[in-house]
């Protein structure tokens, strides 16, 4: 088997007010991919397409070297999916949910489930509805982890979590990959700072199209940023500017990372979050 766990090729999905257009990317084992974009950029639609929740107008999804439609039930169980909210009957006790899932999935590791519950201090005798938002998010991910998934697809899993819970969550995901390098995670968020700690790669999506896809290191090595006042901006070599944003009397500028630009006064490394904001909200300089 190749190290590509999931391959998305030119998928297209048309809605009345939104088009997911020609989206392609690959997920390789041993990597955590941050899937980043604004609200409404197409993250959830892409994830739904990957997991078979929606049909496609065009394109192909394959996982574990097989076309998605040819995946067996056992193959499908290797894909763990969580939504931003708990997708379980909330009026039931967690121990009962375990009984249900034990019966509904072929490869469920019950011992691991109870181990995770103990690690996260989740009381198995509580009903789901009685858990805090953070606890629910943890339960959500624990459920995905316990049917021996090789690929986790997590749609905004950290929504509403406090900083401590976010940190625990990040550790859990890192451990998941470290334990077995044949696994991969695709995690979406509109808050990149959450993902910067754990993601090895980023996929940026904007208005239904992938605008950048590369390793975190390569993305951050591609660009530099600096802040100029208006006077400096006007005299700055415009050809150097990839994107710029005017903020009051100043102007933030994204420039390419090359030997010449590195020597500029005040230049700083651009982090993934800065780059995304520049690419989405920044303007291209057009000489006219």
């Amino acid at each position, binding site marked *: 088997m190749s190290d590509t766990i999931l391959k998305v090729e030119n998928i297209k999905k048309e809605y009345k007010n939104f088009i997911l257009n020609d989206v392609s990317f690959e997920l390789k084992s041993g990597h955590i991919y941050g899937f980043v974009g604004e609200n409404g950029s197409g993250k959830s639609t892409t994830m*739904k397409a990957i997991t078979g929740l929606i*049909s496609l107008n065009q394109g192909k999804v394959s996982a574990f070297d097989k076309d998605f439609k040819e995946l067996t*039930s056992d193959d499908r169980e290797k894909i763990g999916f969580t939504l931003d909210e708990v*997708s*379980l009957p909330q009026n*039931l006790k967690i121990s009962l949910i375990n009984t249900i899932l034990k019966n*509904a*999935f072929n490869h469920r590791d019950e011992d691991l489930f109870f181990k995770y519950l103990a690690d996260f201090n989740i009381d198995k005798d509580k009903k789901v509805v009685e858990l805090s938002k953070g606890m629910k998010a943890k339960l959500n991910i624990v459920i995905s982890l316990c049917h021996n998934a090789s690929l986790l*697809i997590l749609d905004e899993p950290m929504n509403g979590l406090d900083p401590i819970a976010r940190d625990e969550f990040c550790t859990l995901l890192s451990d998941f990959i470290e334990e077995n390098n044949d696994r991969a995670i695709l995690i979406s968020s509109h808050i990149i700072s959450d993902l910067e700690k754990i993601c090895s790669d980023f996929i940026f999506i904007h208005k239904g199209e992938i605008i950048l896809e590369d390793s975190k290191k390569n993305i951050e090595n591609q660009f530099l940023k600096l802040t100029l006042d208006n006077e400096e901006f006007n005299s700055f070599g415009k050809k150097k500017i990839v994107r710029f944003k005017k903020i009051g009397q100043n102007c933030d500028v994204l420039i390419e990372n090359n030997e010449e630009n590195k020597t500029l006064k005040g230049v700083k490394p651009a982090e993934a979050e800065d780059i995304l904001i520049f690419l989405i909200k920044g303007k291209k300089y057009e000489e006219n």
Partner: protein
Amino acid sequence: MKKIKGLLLKDILQSKSYLFIYIFVYVIFAVVGIFLAISSKSGTEYFNDPNVSEESLAIGLLQSSILSCIFVFCLSPMYAASGITLSFQQDEKWNFDKFAVASGISRKTIVTEKFCFGLLVTLPSFIVSVIVAIVIAIMNTYSLKYLVVLYCLLINIGGLLIHSSVALVFNTFLGSVKGRVWLSIATIFGLLLEGGIFYFYAGVGINNVLYGSLITFGFLLISIGIAIGLYFLSLKAYLNKEF
């Protein structure tokens, strides 16, 4: 099969919180049915012409008891079918349907489980019909009374199949919210159809075994056909469902 068992378990456990109200409603159905059976017998006896033969009197009593109990025989399956809608509604509310499909439980498994669950929730309704039918049989002296109540129960099974499969098809096609509205409309037609069959059977089938058998087994076969057809229709709808 294992996955269906797991999903059935979920639906049963989820329905537990509604168990008390379900039992209460079915007890009401049973009590009303028994009351209607007894009162229709007393009424028919009171107005009876003394010149009518004992056999004819017994047939008349059976007819009036069954006609009175159409209310229970028909409304109880309708109520039973609401169990499926409730189960769909809960899955949509908690996003369990999305989770299940995305986690590798096939759409066919989900529809098949709902179909099975639909049949399961009609069991209490059938038990109520059995109780009412037994009361009717005990009170009557007609020589073929057990055959008659057996046929009534078979017609009732047909009704249960139709109600539960119609509920399935509306929920898979339209979701639980829109499905509930259309199901209410369809239920009225279901009630009229099932009530009509009972009425027809009571009128011409009770004292004629051949007609009675034709009506009963004809309706049962048609019901089975409708249920199977609607199952496949539901499957088709669910396979194309977008979450």
